[in-house]
């Protein structure tokens, strides 16, 4: 979808800021969870719900069973943070964080996924909003197990018009953990994000 509000400069700044935030997240995970890995350079696209649906379907295999954690964040820059991790990666994460001899329980796995999501969302979003000189409030995350890549319900497809999709992939090879991150903001956020980036640009070039 052609974006009439976001200029190339805006997108470049946002990409740079998200890059810094994602780098921060990798460091935090290494420090807090003793998991060393890397994150891919984030992709930023502006789309509608249909586009988001296509994007998710292209990013996540159809046959995969996933733990999907969604966490809302509010403030001048608000939206939804989604972390998708396959069941095998989630199991490995459970083993890693609970380092039990026996396989981790379903509760352990869910809590481990929530914990990782906490760190990812807090680092990425907090750092991003910090760079943009604004504050953010996090809401309680919730996880559901979804078979396949149908993460967007048909009702949701009708609700939003424009969405900024920030997506990246994290890999912890040693622990064999992979996940997909989607940060979604809708309609009116584009304008406020644009204003925040404008301020940042002014700050940088003044």
């Amino acid at each position: 979808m052609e974006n009439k509000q976001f200029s190339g400069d805006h997108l470049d700044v946002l990409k740079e800021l998200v890059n810094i935030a994602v780098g921060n997240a990798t460091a935090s995970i290494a420090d807090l969870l003793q998991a060393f890995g890397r994150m891919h350079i984030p992709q930023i696209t502006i789309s509608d719900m249909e586009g988001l649906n296509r994007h998710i379907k292209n990013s996540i295999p159809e046959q995969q069973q996933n733990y999907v954690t969604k966490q809302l964040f509010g403030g001048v820059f608000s939206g939804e943070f989604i972390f998708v991790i396959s069941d095998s990666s989630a199991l490995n994460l459970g083993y890693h964080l609970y380092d039990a001899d026996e396989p981790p329980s379903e509760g352990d796995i869910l809590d481990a996924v929530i914990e990782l999501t906490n760190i990812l969302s807090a680092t990425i979003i907090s750092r991003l909003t910090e760079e943009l000189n604004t504050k953010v409030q996090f809401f309680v995350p919730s996880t559901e197990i979804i078979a396949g890549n149908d993460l967007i319900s048909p009702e949701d497809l009708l609700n939003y018009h424009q969405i900024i999709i920030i997506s990246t992939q994290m890999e912890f090879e040693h622990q064999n953990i992979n996940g997909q991150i989607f940060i979604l903001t809708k309609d009116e956020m584009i304008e406020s994000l644009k204003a925040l980036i404008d301020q940042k640009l002014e700050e940088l070039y003044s």
Partner: protein
Amino acid sequence: MPTIPYPNILLDALEIGVIIIDDQFKVRYWNKWLEINTGIEPAKIVGENLQTFYPQIDYKVFSRKIRTTLRLHSPTFYDASLQNRFLEIPRTKITTSLLTTMQLQVTIAPYIPEQSMVMVSIYDISDLHELKLNLQHQMQTIAKLNDELYREKAIIDSNLLIAKIDSDCCVLEVTQAFVTFFGYKRESLLGRPLSYVFGEGSIDFDSKHMRDVIASQQRWSGEVKAFLENGDGIWLDAVVNPITDDNHEIRSYTVIFHDISDKKRIELLSITDPLTKLFNRRKFDEVFEQMIMRQHWNKDASFSLIMIDIDHFKRLNDTYGHQVGDKVLMETAQVLTQTVRTGDVLARWGGEEFACLLPDVNVEKALHVAQKLRSAIEMLDIPEAGVITASLGVSLYKIGDTEESLIQRADTALYRAKENGRNRVESY
């Protein structure tokens, strides 16, 4: 500089549990909600290590969450979707409770990071969790019912002959069994009148009958004759049921068919003479009795009984053999069937004798029909048997007659016809 003078009053007024704790698990604050719900007084726990009171908590995980909170200056959470992973707090709810301990939602937020202190907020989400469990249970029940429904639908679809029709008798849906049984393609049936399925020649299942039923918006059942795509005739038992919507308005109809061709064949065998294919004596007696029972007969519109006996049949049998005799009986039955009027009832009475009931006649009409029958037999061309003739006795129902009296008079007339030279008609 504190902006609220008495923060402890605030924390005690909250309807959630609040613990202020450091990264060594030393409790710094234990609010009123926790005192009431855990039975542990703040005086006993504040300044103590939480591990003493709650050794079952996974402190490695708790420590990591505190560290994450302090490091990131951001809240962390426990998963609240399955079993409780933090404090075990008994639940006092007595009615309809699935949970004996509270389901908690736990948020760990930074309090004074410089002193490694965090604030743990504990929300009782048991009611919500119970609703979720109930909903999951209901969803499982619905899924199970759906599976059963699907299986039963599959059984119905593959075994029962069902058509859904609209008020114009046009087909909306048909089962696979229906398609297979009638030998049509589903696409060729949808949207077409149901009478199309039953062939042009089917008068029993003309839409009229069905349309009347549909117009009356009632349930109907009955037997219908239909034709398969290959032209074979079959008998079906049909039940028509209106389908109503939530406002009780009829939206469509289901027609459930059951193949009763075998039953009809057996029924036919039980009332048919195997040689001549005419009604047998049992069926004739039944019809005769019904005709006597009718009350509307009078002098001008009565009914008549004709007894027909093939002349010299014993001699014919003896001379030419039983095969020729049987052929004469069959040919005679056929010519009589072709000659009687629609609505007349013809049967093999026994041996070489036939009986015919003629409704709505007077003497003249009865005699006229009898003469036609006699003449038709005389015209029979059976080379191996020579000329065949028959004698006929006619009696007309009069008020007070019984089956026996009517038969006796027809027999007497038949006897007279034989006496008077055979190949003739007499009445009595």
